[in-house]
C-alpha cells in the first residue's frame, strides 16, 4: 500500500530526471538509455525563473502568516479571557467565514478589489524584483498586498477557531491577576498569553505556511501580472509554455513542492498538531 502511495511521486521524479529526447525515442515506460540527469531541473530553473516565483510566494506567505497569527490571537484572547455577550457570535462569524467555499464570495470580492483605492507610495526594488507600497495601480487588484490581505482575512477565521480552543484551557485567573497588577490588556496579550500559546502558534504557523503556499485560487483571480504570480499559478502557466515537455513540467512541479515537503519533514509534529488541535477538542 505504501509503495502504491509513493508511486505517483516516484514516477514524477523518474520522469523529471530523464532527458526529453530519451523519452521521445523510447517512451516513458522504459529504462533510461542515456542515463539520468538534472538537465530538466537546470532548464526549468533558468527558463521558467523558478527562483523568482519562490520569492513572489515568500513575499506573500511570510507577512500573511505573521499577520494572521497576530490578528487571530488578538480575537481569540479577547473572546476567551473576557466574558462578553458577543464572544460566541464573533467566534462563529470567524469560523463559519473560513468554511465558506471561496467561490461563493469571489464575484463581489473581485469588484471590491477593482474598486478600492489604495495609495501608490513607490516601491522597494531589489534586483529585478519590485514590491509596491502599497499599490502600483492604485487598486487592491493585482497587488501583493491584495493577496496578502485576502489570505490573512480568510485564514484568520481558521486560526481564531484553533487558538480560541487552545486559549480556553488557559485559566482566566492569569489575566485577572495581571490586570490587578496594573498591566493593560495589550501587554497581557503580548507578554503573558502569547508566550503561553507558543506550541499552538508554532503549529498554526506551520499549517498556515502550507495553506498559503499551496493556494491557487486567490492568486488566479486577484492577480493579473504574470511577474507577480506565486509559484503555484506560475506553474500552471508553465504548462502552457512547455506543453509537450512533460519531463520539464515534472521537474518544475517537484521544485515547487520542495518547500512544503521540507517544512513537513522538519516540523511534522507541529504540522499534525495544527490540523488536529481544532478537531479533537471540538
Amino acid at each position, binding site marked *: 500500500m505504501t509503495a502504491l502511495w509513493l508511486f505517483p511521486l516516484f514516477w514524477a521524479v523518474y520522469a523529471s530526471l530523464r532527458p526529453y529526447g530519451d523519452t521521445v525515442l523510447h517512451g516513458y515506460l522504459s529504462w533510461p538509455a542515456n542515463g539520468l540527469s538534472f538537465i530538466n531541473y537546470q532548464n526549468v530553473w533558468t527558463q521558467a525563473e523558478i527562483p523568482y516565483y519562490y520569492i513572489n510566494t515568500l513575499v506573500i506567505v511570510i507577512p500573511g502568516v505573521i499577520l494572521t497569527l497576530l490578528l487571530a490571537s488578538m480575537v481569540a484572547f479577547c473572546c476567551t479571557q473576557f466574558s462578553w455577550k458577543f464572544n460566541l457570535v464573533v467566534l462563529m462569524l470567524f469560523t463559519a467565514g473560513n468554511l465558506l467555499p471561496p*467561490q461563493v464570495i469571489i464575484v463581489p470580492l473581485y469588484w471590491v478589489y477593482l474598486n478600492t483605492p489604495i495609495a501608490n507610495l513607490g516601491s522597494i526594488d531589489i534586483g529585478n524584483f519590485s514590491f509596491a507600497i502599497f499599490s502600483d495601480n492604485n487598486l487592491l487588484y493585482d497587488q501583493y498586498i491584495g493577496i496578502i490581505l485576502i489570505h490573512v482575512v480568510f485564514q484568520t477565521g481558521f486560526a481564531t477557531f484553533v487558538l480560541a480552543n487552545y486559549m480556553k484551557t488557559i485559566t482566566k485567573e492569569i489575566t485577572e491577576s495581571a490586570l490587578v497588577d496594573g498591566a493593560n490588556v495589550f501587554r497581557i496579550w503580548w507578554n503573558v498569553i502569547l508566550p503561553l500559546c507558543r506550541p499552538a502558534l508554532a503549529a498554526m504557523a506551520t499549517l498556515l505556511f502550507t495553506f498559503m503556499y499551496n493556494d491557487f485560487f486567490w492568486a488566479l483571480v486577484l492577480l493579473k501580472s504574470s511577474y507577480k504570480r506565486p509559484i503555484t499559478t506560475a506553474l500552471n502557466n508553465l504548462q502552457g509554455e512547455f506543453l509537450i515537455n512533460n519531463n520539464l513540467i515534472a521537474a518544475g*512541479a517537484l521544485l515547487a513542492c520542495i518547500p512544503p515537503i521540507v517544512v513537513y519533514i522538519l516540523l511534522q509534529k507541529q504540522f499534525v498538531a495544527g490540523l488536529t488541535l481544532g478537531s479533537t477538542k471540538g
Partner: protein
Amino acid sequence: MANTTTSAAPARTQKAPEAGALVARRKRRYTLLTRHDKILLALMVGVPLTLDVLLIWGPTLASVALSFTNWQNIGPITGKNFVGLKNYQFMFTGYTLFWPAFIHNLIWLAWLTLIATPLGMFFAVLLDREMRGTRIYQSVFFLPVVLSLVVVGFIWDLQFAPTDGFINNALGTAKSANLIDWLGNPRINLFSILIATSWRHIGYIMILYLAGLKSVDPSLREAARVDGATEVQTFFRVVLPVMAPINVIIVVVTAIEALRAFDIAFIINQGKNGLELLSILIYNNSISEASLVGFGSAIAVILLLISLVPIVAFLSRVMRTLA
C-alpha cells in the same frame, strides 16, 4: 450510547453553580478594566472583525443580492437591473451546464464520503494498532496532503496522460486503437481526478481520525476485550460511538472539501468537458469568460445554500465546547 448520556448528566448539574460564580466574577472583572483597556479590547476584536465582515460576509450577502439582478459589472446598479428570479429560472431550465456541474459536485461528495473518507478512517484504525513502522507509514500516507493541488494535478497527469502516461503504457493500451483517454473522455475523467483528489484526501482524514483514536480511553477497549468482544465488534460498538464528535467533524470536513473543489479540475482542463463544477461555473460566468455578475451570483447562492448544511452542523457541534 448509554455511556454518553450518563456522563452528560453530571456535567449538566455541575454547570449550574458555575454559572452563578460566573456572574459574580464578571462583576469583578469589569471593575478591573479601565476605559483605556476597553478601548484596546474593542480595537483588538474590532479591526479583524471589520475586515472579516467587509471581505467575507459583505461579499456573501452581496452575492445573494446580486443574484436577483442582471448587472454586468458596468455602471451603477439601478432599479432597472432588478430581474427577480430570472437568473434562477434560466439556471434551472435553460443553462445546460448547471445540472451536470451540480451532479458532478454530488458525485464528488458521494465519492469522498463513501470511498475516500472511509479508507482514510480504515488506515487510521490500522495504524493505531502500534505495529512496527507506524510512523513511517503515517508519514507516507500524509505526504500528499502537504502538496499543492496544482502539483497533485501534474503528478497525476503523468499517470493518466493518454500516450505518455504510466497507466496506459503499463496496460499496453497507449499505442493501440482502443486507447483510454483518462482525462479527456467526459465519461471517465471525473473519476480520474477523483482518484487524484483521494490520494490527498485519504491522508488528511487519516491524520484527523488517528488523533481522535489516540484520545479514546484504552481501558474501554480493554474492558470490551475482557468481555470477549472481537476487534471488529469493539470498533463498531465501543470505539465508534465514543468518537461521535470527531465523526461529525470528519463528515463536515469531507463535505466542505467536496463543495470547494476547484483547483484540480481547473488545472486538468479548465473544468470543461466532463469536469464542470459549480465553483468553476461561478468563475467562468462572472470573471474569466463573461461578466454576468448576476447570473454567476445565482450559482454562488446555490453553492452557499448547500455549504450551509455542513457549516451549521459543524458550528452546532463545535460551539458547544467553546461556549
